[in-house]
């Protein structure tokens, strides 16, 4: 046990001290935070500039009303969009050419062409140097829509005020039924499930690869037999897997602390500086989800890392390992591909069966727990199956590892590897 502890300590310190780990652990959440906050900050802080937009109103009915309604303001109170009317006196194409020149010269940011038959159902064209500012496009589109629809209603003898009352969009709220009652859920479950499952997926792959590379390094640097003169291959494998598991848990702990600080302070911090952003809220996650998250990380990690260790022991280089490791990595990718299906029908028979299959269960069962807490017996079932499979694979992988570590040269074929298991 003392020897295993020495190996655990070595693995842990060697990884935790690397720049990759420090950057990944500390900068990871910082970068994630930046992704969330920077766009909010930028949009909140920027004042913006006035934009001039040309209007060619061939119908001669829309412009005035449009100008009245386009009353979006900048932070300093000025109008955001200043409309310029261009009378269509002669040829439309000629006028368009002139305006195109103005757009390219930067005099106006864009222009729209309202056709003569707009009330009867014509199409408005909007031309600009770029049309990727969705906010602007949708604002213009919305105002234009209101103005034109009102005109149409009036022409038909209807009162626009009255009609809009009837056309009021139906309010639609999504709720989640839980044992504690009914809670409002505006897509938070989806996002949280998605993020948690992706973190689990990425960390399982990352730490699996770390084990793989560690074993290959021990083998290719020829240090492995030196170490085996002091302990058994199984002890080395156990120490390695436990040491790296400790690294993973350390990383989660740091992220969890970071996440807690973020959730508890982010709203108040943001709103104290920028009152406009006070609506921003990170959805709260039940504690049991985190417990299962850690449980499935540990179980999934043991399952995959023993196999990655076995693969590492049979090869001589990372290149060779990639070929052998692909099927194993696929076992992690498949549940990600099935994710959307399971999320949509978490309690269908197929979802239940898939989430019980050991290689898929860490990701799919966790997903089901996030979306719709399944009966405890199903969770327990997946855990028991996972543990039994892992125990069997540790035995199997240990046999391969023990022989593979001392084999150099040609990469063994699968039948050869199977034969190793029978060696004394």
């Amino acid at each position, binding site marked *: 046990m*003392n*020897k295993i502890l*020495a*190996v655990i300590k*070595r693995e842990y310190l*060697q990884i935790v001290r690397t720049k990759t780990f420090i950057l990944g652990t500390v900068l990871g959440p910082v970068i994630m935070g930046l992704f969330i906050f920077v766009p909010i900050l930028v949009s909140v802080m920027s004042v913006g500039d006035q934009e001039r937009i040309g209007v060619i109103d061939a119908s001669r009915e829309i412009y005035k009303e449009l100008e009245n309604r386009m009353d979006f303001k900048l932070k300093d109170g000025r109008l955001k969009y200043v409309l310029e009317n261009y009378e269509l006196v002669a040829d439309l194409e000629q006028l368009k050419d002139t305006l195109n020149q103005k757009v390219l010269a930067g005099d106006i940011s864009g222009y729209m062409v309202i056709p003569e038959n707009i009330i009867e159902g014509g199409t408005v064209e909007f031309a600009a140097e770029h049309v990727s500012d969705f906010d602007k496009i949708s604002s213009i589109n919305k105002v234009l829509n209101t103005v034109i629809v009102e005109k149409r209603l009036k022409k038909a003898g209807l009162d626009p005020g009255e009609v809009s009352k009837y056309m009021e969009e139906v309010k639609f709220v999504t709720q989640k039924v839980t044992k504690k009652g009914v809670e409002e859920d505006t897509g938070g479950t989806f996002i949280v499930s998605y993020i948690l499952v992706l973190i689990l997926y990425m960390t399982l792959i990352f730490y699996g690869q770390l084990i793989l590379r560690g074993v290959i*390094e*021990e083998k290719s*640097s*020829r*240090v492995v*037999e*030196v*170490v*085996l*003169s*002091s*302990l*058994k291959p199984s002890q080395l494998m156990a120490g390695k897997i436990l040491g790296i598991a400790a690294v993973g848990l350390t990383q989660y702990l740091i992220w969890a602390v970071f996440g807690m600080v973020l959730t508890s302070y982010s709203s108040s911090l943001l709103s104290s500086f920028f009152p406009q952003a006070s609506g921003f809220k990170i959805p709260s996650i039940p504690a049991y989800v985190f417990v299962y998250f850690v449980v499935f990380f540990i179980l999934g990690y043991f399952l995959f890392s023993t196999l990655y260790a076995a693969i590492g022991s049979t090869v001589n280089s990372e290149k060779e390992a990639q070929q052998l490791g692909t099927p194993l990595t696929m076992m992690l990718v498949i549940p990600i591909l099935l994710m959307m299906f399971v999320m949509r029908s978490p309690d269908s028979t197929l979802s239940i069966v898939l989430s019980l299959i050991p290689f898929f269960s860490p990701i799919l069962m966790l997903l089901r727990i996030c979306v719709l807490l399944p009966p405890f017996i199903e969770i327990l079932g997946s855990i028991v199956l996972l543990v039994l499979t892992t125990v069997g694979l540790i035995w199997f992988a240990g046999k391969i590892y023990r022989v593979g570590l*001392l084999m*150099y040269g040609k990469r063994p074929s699968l039948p050869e590897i199977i*034969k190793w298991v029978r*060696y*004394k």
Partner: protein
Amino acid sequence: MEAIDVENISKQYGSFYAVKNLSFGVPEGSVYGLLGPNGAGKTTTIRMIMNVIIPDQGSIRVLGEKMSEDMKSRIGYLPEERGLYPKMKVGELLAFLAHLKGFRGQEAKKGIDGWLDRFDLSKWKEKKAEELSRGMQQKVQFIATVVHKPELIILDEPFSGLDPVNTKLLKDIMLEMKESGVTIIFSTHRMEQIEMICDNICLINKAQSVLKGNLAEIKKNYGKNMIILEYDGDGRRIREFPEVDKIDDYGKYMEIKLKDRADPQKFLTFLAGKVRVDRFEIKEPTLNAIFIDKVGEKNE
């Protein structure tokens, strides 16, 4: 008492025998040579002694006990395939390897510093192993083998890749350890090293032992019918002597084994007038000659 007692061990991979019915004993406090051509089964034998692989049959006793995991801390082992963790600092690496042998704390620290000092590596203690030259890495590997004060040292091809300076250093330390009572067993395919250092040998060829025992006795039993000849002239004429058994001809230097009970004096008379004799020496056979005699010339 014997430090290592190997009894009738075999290891088979499929139908291929890596080691077959091998037995030998290493007397305590001696230097024992495992000799054999490449692929003879030396490394497999050593790995079985170290419990790194398990023999299919037979038994191994080490330091008077049945070999087990607990014994490993009393043994220092330098494998043939040896290396260091490239990213670890030399000092930490040695502390880790010593810790695995149950040797830790202040005493371990002192031991490591002492050895680093002796090998002139003190200023490399905080450097990563990958920054060291090959020669320095070999010294660190050797320190890792002996730092925990083992009673038995097993070295698999310890001299391979060493330059003459480090070869001498290693040989000196081996003798020093022998004098302090440590048993040393080492494998090599280089005769002259065995001849100079070993008390006892076991010659392995094709998985089996072909010759074993005390080196001096082996040589004596081989008889004094070995002739060292330095000559000038036509070597072919020397071969005409009917009682020549084997010749290893270098052009001007020849190692000649005469047939049993042949008279060297007659041979000298035969040579006179055929070639110019610069040196004629009757001596015990070299290990090289015994090796070739036993294993066949194809192997060397």
